[in-house]
């Protein structure tokens, strides 16, 4: 009995494999009409669709939702293009398969929008010289290929400004920060936030609690509670879903600084301000640049960083809550102008690390590239980096 099942199943498998192999060879050419590039032949031209992959769900009130909202703006700007979006794409090799599926559907431009999508993005770009893949938030080490680039805003600049609002608002001088994992982006945000706060309130400290998850509402709630019990009277966060922490702060009657999305309606009393995404204009610029065939060698064929110094930062400051004084608002406007000038930076030296050692020398402004790889906490941060 076992023997017969075995034989049948084996025969079936062999037959299936044969079928597959037969299907493989001819289909390769047939499935991707228009593989041959446009007249210009430049990567990313001649497509009929634009793909966006996100690591989380489309409506997380946070990072991924901001991407999807901007993809709609791209669709409006390029009505001939089909907008393909795929959510919950893990930061592993299955992202490659999803991007391949998008290419099968006519996409020549793909936005891989999570920090951890970079490896997959590079793999797809290498396999498809006619497709441009742009990755959001990470940085390519060394020289990028002709059809790939990364882009990001300088998230920590608006977080520095929000820190000013927090430093002015706190009465306990304890700020609370809920984060997921110690990646450089998060570390730079936390550091900029406390430096902003200390610029108006040298006594301020920020207490950090990690949740070991980009979105686990119950863990976020517990983290918020533990910060509140330590006397934190301003809460902020680096999480993909942001509602829980904001809600916890509002319920406790303390201030909150938003992240990713303007959530002022969730905290009508305690909302100070927030750093929120506005990707639309930058996405449209990138697509425009690619479709006219200018990508290779252009500004986006690199680790493109846009901050207050270089143009329109896609990370913008949200509106102010009722408790923020006119004086503070004026100071923030002044500081924003300073950050945009050649002399300004949240990390203008001297910057002391958490242990008191000198991290940035007096008068030095670290470059955007250096700040992309930040891996230490500055003085005033209470917490440790998973060691």
């Amino acid at each position, binding site marked *: 009995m*076992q*023997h*017969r*099942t*075995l034989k049948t*199943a*084996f025969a*079936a*498998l062999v037959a*299936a494999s044969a079928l*597959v*192999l037969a*299907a*493989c*060879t001819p*289909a*390769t050419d047939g*499935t991707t009409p228009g593989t041959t590039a446009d007249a210009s032949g430049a990567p990313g031209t001649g497509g009929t669709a634009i793909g966006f992959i996100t690591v989380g*769900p489309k409506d997380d009130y946070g990072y991924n939702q901001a991407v999807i909202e901007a993809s709609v703006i791209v669709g409006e700007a390029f009505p001939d293009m089909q907008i*393909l*979006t*795929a*959510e*919950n*794409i*893990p*930061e*592993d*090799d*299955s992202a490659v*398969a*999803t991007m*391949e*599926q*998008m290419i*099968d*559907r006519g996409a020549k431009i793909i936005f891989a929008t999570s*920090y*951890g999508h*970079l*490896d997959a993005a590079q793999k797809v770009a290498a396999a498809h010289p006619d497709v441009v893949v742009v990755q959001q938030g*990470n*940085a390519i*080490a060394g020289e990028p290929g002709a059809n790939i680039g990364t882009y990001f805003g300088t998230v920590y600049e608006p977080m520095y400004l929000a820190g000013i609002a927090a430093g002015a608002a706190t009465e306990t001088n304890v700020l609370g920060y809920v984060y997921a*994992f*110690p*990646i*450089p982006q998060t570390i730079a945000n936390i550091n900029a936030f406390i430096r902003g706060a200390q610029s108006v309130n040298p006594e301020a400290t920020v207490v950090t609690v990690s949740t*070991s998850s980009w979105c686990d509402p119950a863990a976020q709630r517990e983290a918020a509670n533990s910060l509140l019990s330590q006397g934190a009277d301003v809460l902020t966060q680096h999480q993909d879903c942001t509602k829980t922490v904001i809600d916890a702060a509002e319920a406790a009657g303390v201030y909150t600084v938003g992240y990713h999305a303007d959530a002022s309606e969730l905290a009508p009393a305690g909302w100070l301000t927030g750093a929120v995404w506005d990707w639309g204009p930058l996405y449209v610029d990138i697509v425009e640049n690619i479709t006219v065939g200018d990508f290779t060698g252009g500004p986006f064929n690199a680790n493109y960083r846009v901050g207050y110094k270089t143009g329109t930062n896609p990370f913008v400051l949200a509106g102010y809550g009722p408790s923020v004084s006119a004086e503070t608002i004026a100071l923030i406007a002044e500081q924003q102008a300073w950050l945009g000038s050649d002399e300004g930076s949240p990390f203008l030296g001297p910057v002391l690390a958490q242990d008191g050692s000198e991290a940035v020398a007096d008068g030095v402004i670290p470059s955007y590239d250096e700040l*992309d*790889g*930040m*891996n230490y906490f500055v003085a005033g941060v209470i917490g440790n980096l*998973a*060691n």
Partner: protein
Amino acid sequence: MTAHVDTDVDPQAPPAQATWQSKLARAGLRALPHVGRWAAAIAGALLIFSILVSFKGANPIDVFGDMWTSTFSRSRSIGEIFIRMAPLALAALAVVVPARAGMINVGGEGQVIVGAVAAAGVGLATDQVLPGGVVLLLMAIAAILAGALWAGIAALLRLVFNVNEAVTTLLLNFVSLDLLLFLIYQPWRESPTQQPATRQLATEAQLPTLAATGVHVGIVVAVIAAVVLALALGRTRWGFRLAVVGGNPEAARRAGMPVTVLLLSALLVGGALAGLAGMIEFAGVETKLRPGFGTQIGYVGFLASWLARHKPVPVLIAAFTLAALAVGADSLQLDSGLPAATINILTALLLMAVLGWTAFRKKAA
């Protein structure tokens, strides 16, 4: 053996032929309700799924049509199915062996991760100094040992402390995840200024691909494992004894079988297979450890094993089906605008149909 006797009979002899035909007819009649049950169960699952997606404004015919086209008419997708199928099949076999002895291994998820961790540890330590083939072999051995060790914790808890292995293997999944994250955020992280991940495995130490298909040899490993297990479970004393223990442990004990050793061996072999799945995913697909490594391979493998009723060779078909569904999930998003996780509904309904409505009714549990 009887089958051979039948075929040896001269087909010209009229009486023998009649017997052969009537035998076939009777076998067909016996199989008919079986086939009917399977067809009805699967149709029922598809129907319920159709109703659910139409609530969200999608046309079920289009949904299925797009999924089919997207999955089976593109060579890349077909290759992708085989790539995903390999670890799934091994993770399913990791459930099959303990199930033979009446044990439930829900820990594939963790055993896959631990296997990959061990493979990465050994692979990244040796890939600069040893030839690729040797590194691959070492990685496989390390992964097999690590997977067995991880399952061994659950085996120990079951055999020494009498704690149910389904519960402990499940809890160990969460432990392995934190172990993985710890390693890639701290000691094994390639660079603190880059994304949390290990260094990439040297190209020579990665699994080779089957000529021109882009599909790595993991699928061959999975097929061989399934066939070997079919023989081991069906033809060896160990296999028979496992089945006796699974059927009635008391009887096995009275018959003087080493029940504890048998249970231990079943769970260890299960863990080893899942560990091997982790190594294949690491050396064949991911080539570095990242957060989220191997997500759902263990759980989907568990479902595949039940779909195949814990029979090694049908496991290949179940793993193929679930891998195809996973590939088809992209189409749900790209073509139908449904959340990707919707595919879980279809997977669950299919399994429920098979669990509840394909077996001839037996005494309720």
